[in-house]
């Protein structure tokens, strides 16, 4: 039956190519605009770690100025990062199955002079759990172990580009790289890894890419490594020097914990609160008790990593699609009404009301799919244009999920446009009406 209806639909569409192309064009227009902006939003808002992100939690403590909230107008606000000393203390807990404090710095890489001049490169300082927690993909080797964390051992993980630059893309595990005045042993080389957002660093927003080099966090106090990211302070350091900075109330670290079960989440929240209550006794944390242990999806939403304009464009483009398909109702109504004589004959020949209805819905869906495919094609081009305009645009593309969404939208658009006209024609009585008009 469906095949037969498809055949009739195609015949009917071929009969009036002008109207058919107008219909397809209308859907294509709506689909290309909506797909483009939904895809843009999807790229930046989709879950970077499906199935896992709900178990990863970001820790924040309100250690800010007792007289003034972190965002002065919003007393509920709290710093987006944590202090070195708090991270150290909290990491003593064994409630999280994995955890890492982390920040970004910048080092000089000294390659073999035959290869080139030294160059500065972003380096992320992490604990070994980082690689497992964030599903970092490896081409060669892997992360380092807990022993390397503790000591710390001079080991690093480099990304594919750096490996290409330094070792011509060969398996470089076991070879050494000189950063500033020390040599580090390569333990892992990343597979291509280009998430649209540096999702483990919610303070950066759109734009920056993942770092090319990773090294053990515990080098920080030894080498007095300074952050190359944000640091928020409200109070001077007690004394001079790096140790005074580490002991200060300046927030500059991201601290992630993995809490797979609600029990662990509950336990860890209590642990963090107890820590802060205890610190209050030592004269710190002058503000009301406020700690946040936030899951990754909630955090992304809360910190608004994705610019609000991208969300607005997506909403507006969906409404645009609705207007496009509403617009086709008139056209379809005209087309179907012109067909009333034919339909009443079909009805007289035994086509049921439902069959007539489906017949026309099938026809609209054929239009919807055709328009959807064309629109999808156009949106690939549009996305290329958009990618040129925005920072870090090369991550913008259509994935399978978006293609499915787009096809689904074109089906909905076809249905939206067709359902009323189809209902109108299927309510035509079988014989010609006797009453004039």
């Amino acid at each position, binding site marked *: 039956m469906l095949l037969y209806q498809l055949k009739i639909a195609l015949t009917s569409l071929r009969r009036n190519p002008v109207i058919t192309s107008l219909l397809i064009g209308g859907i294509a227009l709506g689909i290309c605009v909506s797909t483009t902006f939904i895809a843009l939003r999807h790229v930046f808002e989709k879950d970077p770690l499906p199935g896992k992100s709900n178990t990863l939690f970001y820790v924040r403590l309100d250690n800010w100025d007792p007289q003034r909230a972190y965002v*002065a107008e919003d007393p509920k606000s709290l710093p987006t990062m944590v202090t070195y000393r708090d991270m150290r203390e909290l990491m003593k807990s064994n409630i999280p199955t994995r955890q890492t404090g982390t920040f970004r710095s910048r080092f000089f890489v000294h390659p073999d002079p035959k290869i080139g001049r*030294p160059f500065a490169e972003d380096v992320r300082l992490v604990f070994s759990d980082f690689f497992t927690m964030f599903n970092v993909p490896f081409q060669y080797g892997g992360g380092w172990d807990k022993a390397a964390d503790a000591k710390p051992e001079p080991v690093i993980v480099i990304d594919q580009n750096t490996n290409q630059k330094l070792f011509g893309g060969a398996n470089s595990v076991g070879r050494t790289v000189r950063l500033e005045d020390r040599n580090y042993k390569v333990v892992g080389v990343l597979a291509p890894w280009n998430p649209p957002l540096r999702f483990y660093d919610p303070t950066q927003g759109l734009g920056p890419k993942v770092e090319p080099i990773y090294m053990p966090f515990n080098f920080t106090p030894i080498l007095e490594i300074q952050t190359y990211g944000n640091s928020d302070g409200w*109070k*001077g350091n007690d004394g001079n020097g790096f140790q005074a900075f580490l002991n200060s109330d300046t927030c500059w670290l991201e601290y992630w914990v993995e809490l797979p079960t609600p029990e662990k989440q509950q336990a860890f929240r209590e642990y963090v609160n107890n820590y802060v209550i205890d610190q209050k006794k030592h004269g710190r944390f002058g503000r009301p008790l406020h700690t946040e242990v936030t899951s990754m999806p909630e955090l992304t939403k809360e910190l608004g990593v994705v610019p*609000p304009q991208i969300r607005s464009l997506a909403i507006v483009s969906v409404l*645009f699609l609705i*207007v496009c398909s509403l617009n086709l109702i*008139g056209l379809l*109504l005209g087309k179907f009404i012109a067909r009333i004589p034919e339909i009443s004959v079909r009805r007289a020949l035994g086509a049921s009301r439902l069959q007539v209805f489906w017949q026309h819905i099938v026809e609209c869906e054929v239009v919807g799919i055709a328009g959807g495919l064309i629109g999808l094609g156009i949106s690939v081009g549009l996305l290329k244009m*958009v990618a040129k305009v925005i920072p870090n645009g090369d991550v913008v593309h259509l994935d399978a999920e978006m293609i499915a969404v787009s096809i689904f939208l074109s089906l909905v658009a076809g249905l939206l446009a067709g359902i009323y006209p189809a209902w109108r024609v299927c309510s035509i009585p079988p014989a010609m009406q006797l009453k004039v008009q």
Partner: protein
Amino acid sequence: MPFGPIIRAMRHNRMRFAFIILEIAITLAIVTNAVNMILDERKKMLQPSGFDDDNLVSIAYQPFAPEFKEQSYVEALVQKDMRAIHSIPGVKAVATTYFLPWQGGGSSGVWKTDRFNGKFQAQLYAARGEIFQTLGVKVTQGRAFVETDTPVDSNVPTRVTIISRALAKKLWGNANPIGHVITNGEGATPRTVIGIIDDFYNPYAWNIGEFVLFTPGRAYDTTGAVFLVRTEPGAMKSVVAQLEPRLLSVNPGRVFRIVKISDLKDQYFSGGKLVIRAMTAIIIILVFITALGIMGISSLAVAERTKQIGTRRALGATRADILKHFLLENWLVTTAGLILGVIGAYGLNVLLVSKLSDVKMQWELVAGGMVLLWINGLMSTVPAAMRATLVPPSIATRSV
């Protein structure tokens, strides 16, 4: 004109009109919100920084040679570097500063002062050299920095500051700001205001884009330095080409990063530009599509009612009456759509407005959008309505 019968007659085709009403309503909602967003982005873009953006370029170095570990070496080198940059033809002024216009942030702190209740937040940048000539802002009150303002010992805090007019206004109103003292949040590191610069704007969170303190501090240390260079108009290209070679000849043990402020600005506004372009396109296409839709529906309405039009003509309707009938019918539909659209416009606004950048819908915009769509609606009905006036009255006696 007979409203009553027209409305009663329209009820029989209410589904069809309902779709058009919905379409017009959504169109109004989108158009007003899109224009609102465009205006908002434009306002941000048109906000002048107060600087000579197009002729500014920043060059930062990071050293790897061992001699840079000595602060005294760096101290002398930075002076040499500045002289080297100055000697490039086409360079107007140079300074070292961590301030980078249009990077969408910078550094800031929390401060206190007399006669201002509580603490306030403002941007803070250390700068040495001809910082204000370089930026292209004027010191309109008090004086600019002199060499002796910078303490010889880099561990000694600076004692003076030059602030923006907007910050002076916020702190002391119209009173003379020169001589007032600003301290940090704990009341330490007092700095006396010695000068006021006019027109400073660097976008920053917390709405402190116009509030700044400049101090005559060092924007360099053993880990590197940043120079901001202002060129003569048109000299940017040649200056950029010579910056790195010149500084390499002073000391090759370092790497450089050159950023044109105009590029930073472009990048900063890339999202805004995307919004403006996309929204403009959407508005144009949408108004066009809605016009097509109304044309389609109205010609369908006319085609379907040929007999009825003929009858009306036979019963004494003039061509003008027929024209009026269709225009009025459309006007009713459009108006209903627009009324619904006003609700939609405000509703969508609420949906789109985020906590951070609340761009409230302005009623002028809604009114403007209504007028636009009214005209659009009427114009789109005219072709079909004109066709209706051409229906001959003799249609009435023709058998179907």
